[in-house]
């Protein structure tokens, strides 16, 4: 049956943020296709889980509830998901581009022999004419993502092998309640019919999950640095400014790779997507992967030596200069003028 399917992540009876975003995106696709939205969720003690999922407009929810399914392990989850997908034969399946989704989705794609597009920033529905077959394929998933150093946006499609699968990073899709009274049919999955004992062969010995103190998504002001910041020491200027303005510090991938800033502060396609009211980009040239993660900011200030930096084209203020001089001046005049 034609449907859109979402793999939901859950831990301690809480449905992950990314999964709620995917359900919202999945509903929008399902509405375009005029088809049901379905979801699957595997974990333990999931009795009340429906209440967190129904309101996104989910028509059918497959629940596998078993002590051994949480925390996530690849093989049992892959066995369950493939079995459900084989039986339901949906058109589209969405996963979070998380530690879990990026581990699971490719394994499933391999079993089902289907295409999988990673880290999409736009999902849409459209047609495609295949010249060789002289045939128009209707209502395909357009999985759109930046590619090749960010110089291009690629629209990836897959017309001959179902389902069409995609992963999406957290924060990219908007979370949207569809109907608070939506009625969802629950299908209980019999775990022992599908998962074999040897699927539990990888054992978790120890686990430390710390909720990251960094909350870029909610920060009203973000001061971000790129490779052009030059050093960890120079990053201190950005930290000072962010502290003063009550914002968070972020970085481009190049800044993370260079070791200027921690990985959990990376902004962009492969990091966090943010929409603050003010985004200050210092020493960031602005490859599309980075812009994809911040271009919806209400106001953008770019500080850059290079007047031709691509980021300047989406900025509201462009300051040409050295950030090591400019940022301290911003701090000084903020202190003088703020009430």
């Amino acid at each position: 049956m034609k449907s859109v399917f979402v793999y939901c992540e859950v831990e301690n009876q809480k449905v992950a943020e990314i999964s709620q975003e995917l359900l919202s995106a999945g509903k929008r696709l399902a509405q375009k296709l005029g088809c049901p939205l379905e979801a699957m969720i595997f974990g333990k003690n999931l009795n009340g889980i429906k209440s967190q999922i129904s309101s996104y407009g989910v028509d059918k929810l497959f629940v596998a509830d078993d002590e051994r399914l949480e925390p996530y392990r690849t093989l049992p989850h892959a066995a369950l998901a493939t079995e459900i997908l084989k039986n339901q034969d949906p058109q589209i399946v969405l996963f979070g581009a998380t530690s879990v989704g990026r581990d699971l989705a490719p394994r499933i794609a391999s079993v089902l022999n289907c295409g999988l597009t990673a880290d999409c920033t736009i999902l849409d529905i459209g047609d495609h004419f295949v010249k060789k077959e002289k045939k128009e394929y209707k209502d395909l998933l357009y999985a759109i993502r930046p590619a090749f150093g960010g110089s291009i946006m690629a629209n990836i499609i897959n017309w001959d092998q179902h389902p069409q699968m995609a992963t999406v990073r957290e924060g990219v899709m908007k979370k949207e309640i569809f109907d608070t009274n939506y009625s969802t049919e629950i299908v209980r999955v019999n775990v022992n019919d599908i998962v074999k004992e040897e699927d539990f062969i990888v054992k978790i010995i120890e686990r430390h999950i710390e909720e990251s103190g960094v909350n870029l998504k909610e920060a009203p002001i973000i001061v971000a640095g790129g490779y052009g910041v030059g050093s960890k020491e120079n990053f201190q200027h950005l930290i000072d400014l962010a502290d003063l303005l009550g914002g968070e510090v972020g970085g481009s991938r190049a800044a993370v790779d260079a070791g200027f800033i921690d990985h959990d502060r990376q902004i962009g396609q492969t990091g966090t997507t943010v929409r603050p009211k003010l985004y200050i980009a210092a020493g960031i040239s602005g490859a599309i992967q980075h812009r994809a993660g911040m271009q919806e900011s209400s106001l953008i200030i770019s500080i850059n030596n290079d007047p031709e930096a691509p980021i300047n084209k989406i900025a509201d203020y462009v300051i040409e200069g050295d950030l090591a001089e400019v940022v301290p001046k911003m701090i000084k005049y903020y202190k003088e003028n703020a009430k």
Partner: protein
Amino acid sequence: MRPLKIIVLAKQVPDTRHVGADAMKPDGTVNRGKLSTIFNPDDLHALELALNIKDRVLGTEVIILTMGPKRAADIVREGYYRGADYGIMISDRRFGGADTLATSYTLVRGIQKLAPFDLVLGGRQAIDGDTAQVGPQCADKLKIPQVTYVEEIVDIKDDEIIARRRLEKGVETVSSPFPCLMTVHGSSPACRSRHAKRVMKYKYARTNTELKSSKTEELILSLHKKRPYLTIPEWSVEDIDADINKIGLPGSPTKVKSVESIVLTAKEAKKLSDTDADIEIMIKELIEQHTIG
């Protein structure tokens, strides 16, 4: 402890982190010739992890396996320089245009030719696509468990290996029986440098395709006759007995419908200098708009 046989998957990638202005042709397609190529960074971490196990478990063998065009032989040489025992290249025009599914199928045909093995290691992801899909897809096709995002091998026993994984929000230590496949996270130790003696020993290592090139000097050809270890094996579609429908473009379900060059239409940006006057004006405006303060 018994010695292990480790296969390291490594990819040659365009250096997308340093894309110059000439990397794109006027028609919007990628000018691959203008991009320098490097050893995929995460794969170097995987090589280090393998060499680290070799240091710990006497007699362990590290085999480097790469797939790519002719120039990807650099990856095998680099592997030799840093400590790999043996290197193989999968190379054939018909493998071109492969997406992750076709790539994993091809690699697995190569891995199976090297079986039995204890461990397959690869980087978490390659910088030219960042998909992180090939590792798990190989594990599925090999019907073995996968342990992704490994940053440290905690312990190695006769029948199992214990590894610490780096997750988004923490760490997890898991045990897996052999054989298994691991993808290695960039937070693991960086790869050791080239070893001068190994560079001397292997600098003339070439594939047969490279040897056939007219530029090859007589000296190298004669060295290859005396020292067969210098010849890097090159496997074709037939050598790995691959199904032609599962490789290259025909084996790739995902297709690129269209690519769009990114053309930015400039906003009406206010252009400021770094003078005190300009910066004070901007800060005052931001305070007035209640953007800050």
